[in-house]
């Protein structure tokens, strides 16, 4: 079954001066993460992952009183913002937790697991 993994990052660090010049630690963590991602590709559990643009670049589309309103930015200022996502296809939530626990251990930032609803819920 598929799960969406949402990676969050503090909004302050996104805008920090060092954002484009990662530290040694960050590079090491990223290398470890890529190795892990290769494991998940090998096991067939990996579906896709992407980093996201700056939250300021996001657009929110919403229906209000029957009309569609398009607004710049996320709808609220948040301490932590969505930074990346991945889709995995695994045996269940327990396995997803194992995978994401390892990711969080390596990368340090919080992530959210959301089930992707399947045919049972059609």
């Amino acid at each position, binding site marked *: 079954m598929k799960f969406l993994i949402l990676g969050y990052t503090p909004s302050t660090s996104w805008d920090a001066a060092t954002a484009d010049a990662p530290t040694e630690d960050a590079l090491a963590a990223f290398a470890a993460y890529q190795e892990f991602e290769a494991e998940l590709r090998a096991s067939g559990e990996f579906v896709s992952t992407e980093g996201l643009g700056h939250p300021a670049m996001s657009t929110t589309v919403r229906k209000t009183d029957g009309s569609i309103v398009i607004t710049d930015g996320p709808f609220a200022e948040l301490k932590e913002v969505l930074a990346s996502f991945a889709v995995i296809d695994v*045996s269940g*939530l327990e396995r997803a*937790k194992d995978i994401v626990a390892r990711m969080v251990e390596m990368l340090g930032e919080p992530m959210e697991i959301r089930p992707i609803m399947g045919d049972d*819920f059609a």
Partner: protein
Amino acid sequence: MTAPSGAIEHLLRTEAPQVLGALVRRFGHFDIAEEAVQDALLAASRQWQEEELPENPRSWLIRIAYRRMIDTLRAESADRRREEEYAASEPVAGLAPPSPADHDDSLNLLLLCCHPALSSASRVALTLRAVGGLTTAEIAHAYGVTEQTMAVRISRAKQQIRKSGARFEFMADDDFPARLSAVMRVLYLIFNEGYTATTGAQLTRTDLTGEAIRLTRLLHALVPDDPEPAGLLALMLLTDSRHSTRASANGDLIPLADQDRTRWDQAAIREGSELIRAAWSQGDVGTYRLQAAIAAVHASAPVAEETDWEQIAALYLALEQVEPSGVVMLARVVAVAHAFGPSHADALLQQLDRDHGLLQHPLTRHRAHAIRAHLRDAKGDAADARADFLAAADMTANEPEARYLVRKADAELDPESVTRGS
């Protein structure tokens, strides 16, 4: 077209573990999911009687239970957020091989409900509810306790599972054989509770044996290559084949030798015998296969006198090596008495008593004395037999049995007195 209620009940029992498995697999929260599934099962049994069956009953149940889960979680998160500590210090298996049964959740559920953190009574209750799909009221009825008591037991069991952080999904390197044997013990317990009911009416007992057989069939189907679940199923079928001949019209127990064998369930005997034949030689034989083999030997005798007691005695010897309990040892003594005569059996009992204290141990002494009394009686040692009958009578709390033993003791003094009663 509405379905008959029996068919609906069967459908719900079959779907219960699949629905619960689907929810726990995707959303976690075993305790909340289990509650939600029970709600969905009840809603379905009400609604499906009156309306048509939905096109896809499992999806219907999953959707209803899912909504209940969301309601509960939202109500709960208002109070406090649930947190679980992830054991990050433990090396997490990178690519754990898939658990033994990846496609059917029933095995995961059975293993979870028989978690070592739970008491044996809790394991039974939770298995019947989560895997069997029985309602709390049905389980309470079957066990002769109030629904309130059973509800507390089940809710405590779910709390324990949550506290212990038990996972729904099991790694293959988990102590699978040990957990599987816990599952078999629980199923055997359910069967025995139904077969030798301590409480409740006749009908509820049949409910329990029937449910135990159904769940053991399920287990056997999930691990078909494991010979012990096959043996356990065989044992249950062979034992249950005699159920309609075990009691007289007024409820007295009829011993094996006096049962009307023409009324034994031949289909169950055939299936059980075939199962044990097929499973027998696969690996070291375990306790359930040995017991099933003993039951099969009994079942194959057209009349009690033609029972192959020598084979049964040999099987009990093997069983004693696997499971050296007092009960098994005493059963072997009885088999040896039938096969080789009371003198051999008496000598064996003496030897077993020297090694294991069968005549003193509180759990075995009563039966050990009663057996020795019968052996001495058969050998003609009237005085010794009388002493043992009286000792055995003294050790039992069961009044009809005590009366029977005292009458036997009196008969050793004067055979005429047997009719005098007490």
